[in-house]
């Protein structure tokens, strides 16, 4: 079941804007040409005025509200949801994943509302990589990756040869083939992250969501992960959404940035358009320097308070 073989709704004009009606930005062209898309681009993922509020009296975060947020993403695109802690990044990710139903607005994946999909279908179309994965009883890396085939199996889900092939090629895709027979609790953080990513690939999703994937990684592993994601987006035509607070990484690797601050969506667009010094300084509450690099991508450096 290749992602390209799925039904997609009729093409419609695409805007990469926080509010409908805003003109397309130059960065859109840049994205299109970079991916070499032909024909009218179709949004695979449409977040349309989606908002959420945690019900009062529930958890600690009962005060928190995510205000209406909109953006669209196509096949092969990497979107970064960027913001400081408690800005609503993870909430937005849960809305996209369909775990939360939006209070207003909707989230469409190939024309279907993600929150309305049944759990199996959803797992076939959306793969989510969470911050950390704590195993109660350790298993080997390949067993872990095979779990990604769960939404495709029947009854007891004994893995088929096809499942095993998909799992091993998923491991190869993230350059973790040699980890296959290692125990999950005996590999490094970066290696573990790659295996977790391989499990998501084994789901053969249309949409790949990652929640703070770089959190426990050193800088080399962070860059390695983002390079991997960039390549996977291009090769497998995934739409990838990454939640992060790593300004520099998002600026370097994302096609689009969704900037959140205290539950408000401040700006949506390519990094060059979103990365304005005063805006970022206000959001991240620190002094920054932003300059445009030779590739047209913004470079951010920290200057201190």
């Amino acid at each position, binding site marked *: 079941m290749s992602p390209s073989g799925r039904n997609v709704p009729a093409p419609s004009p695409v805007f990469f804007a926080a509010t409908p009606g805003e003109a397309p930005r130059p960065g859109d062209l840049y994205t299109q040409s970079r991916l070499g898309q032909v024909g009218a681009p179709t949004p695979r993922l449409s977040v349309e005025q989606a908002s959420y509020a945690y019900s009062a009296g529930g958890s600690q975060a009962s005060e928190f509200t995510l205000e209406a947020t909109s953006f669209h993403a196509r096949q092969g695109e990497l979107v970064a949801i960027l913001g400081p802690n408690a800005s609503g990044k993870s909430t937005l990710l849960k809305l996209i994943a369909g775990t939360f139903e939006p209070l207003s607005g909707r989230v469409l994946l190939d024309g279907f509302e993600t929150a309305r999909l049944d759990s199996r279908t959803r797992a076939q179309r959306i793969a989510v990589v*969470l911050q950390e994965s704590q195993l109660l009883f350790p298993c080997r890396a390949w067993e872990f990756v095979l779990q990604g085939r769960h939404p495709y199996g029947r009854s007891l889900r004994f893995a088929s040869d096809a499942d095993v092939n998909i799992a091993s090629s998923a491991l190869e895709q993230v350059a973790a083939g040699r980890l296959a027979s290692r125990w999950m609790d005996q590999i490094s953080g970066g290696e573990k992250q790659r295996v977790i990513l391989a499990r998501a690939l084994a789901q053969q999703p249309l949409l790949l969501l990652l929640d703070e994937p770089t959190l426990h990684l050193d800088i080399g592993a962070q860059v390695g992960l983002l390079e991997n994601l960039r390549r996977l987006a291009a090769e497998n035509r995934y739409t990838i959404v990454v939640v992060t607070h790593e300004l520099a990484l998002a600026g370097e690797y994302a096609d689009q940035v969704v900037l959140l601050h205290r539950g408000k969506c401040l700006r949506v667009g390519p990094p060059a358009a979103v990365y304005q010094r005063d805006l970022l300084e206000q959001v991240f509450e620190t002094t920054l320097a932003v300059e445009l690099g030779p590739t047209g991508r913004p470079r951010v450096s920290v200057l201190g308070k």
Partner: protein
Amino acid sequence: MRPLTLKRVLWDCGILLALLFLVVIVSLKLGAVPVSMYGLGRDLIRVALGRSSELSSEYRLIVFDIRLPRILLGIFVGASLSVAGASFQALLRNPLADPYVLGVSSGSALGAILALVAAPHLHLSSLASALLTPLFAFLGAMATIAAVYFLARREGQIDSGTLLLAGIISASFLSAVIMFLMTTLPGRDLRGMAFWLMGDLSTPLPASYRWLLAVGFFAAAGAVYTTAADLNLLLAGEQEAIHLGVDITRVRLVVYVAASLLTALAVSVSGAIGYVGLLVPHVMRLLFRSDYRLLLPTAALGGAIAVVIADTLARTVVAPTELPVGAMTAMAGAPLFVYLLRRRLA
């Protein structure tokens, strides 16, 4: 990469089944009255050939009317407790969960005792009053696990320390209530009290009960087994399981009801036998795999083997006096519990 196959499951279960058969033979032989291996073999063949009328009356009484029913009871009780333990471990995401530690066995025992107290006042038919005990034991199990679950749940997460604490508190509270009922109610003997508190297989079972136990076990264990693949993912985390397509509400409900039923069935016939549900699944994880598709059947067979061995020891170590089988399992289980707890904290 060698994924788990049905063949592997059947093969491993076959090995354990053979082992169980051996244990049963030895258990039939051992006891206060010695039985020769030759005589036992000859009689088993006669029974298998349908010529049970040729058995000597002495053998028939001791081996087939006393020891065999007790062994069969031990098999079902061990399998039920062990599957219930493995289920609770996945459901609550806690490797130290087991019906006894969580207080579910005590809740079941209290329910069973309340049924015994209530039955004479309800003027029920004999079948209905026979069903009353397991039914009340089931309700007691469900109520206890629900109480322990909500005590341990904070902001949608189950805290494993609080869970064990809630279980221990429930267990001791319910045991105290059982003790209170037993000492204040007229006509209750101390032997019966030890039965509910320690677990014991020596009480003979009415025939209708045997059917209930067998049917109930296969229905509940079968229901849990349909969720085996989901339980594997649940162990990796609730959120992750949801993202991998597990219908978590359905799985929780099935496992919660089925594990409570298994505990209730075991407790209503044998009292609260401790540590089987904890010990056996862990040993099976070490011997085989922690994949629930393999773990559930191996735990069932392993639990049967463990309880039959424990009961044989209970019958023989201080023969002709008998120990409650729960005392034997606790003697072996408590040190293992401490070991697992230490390893977890380390």
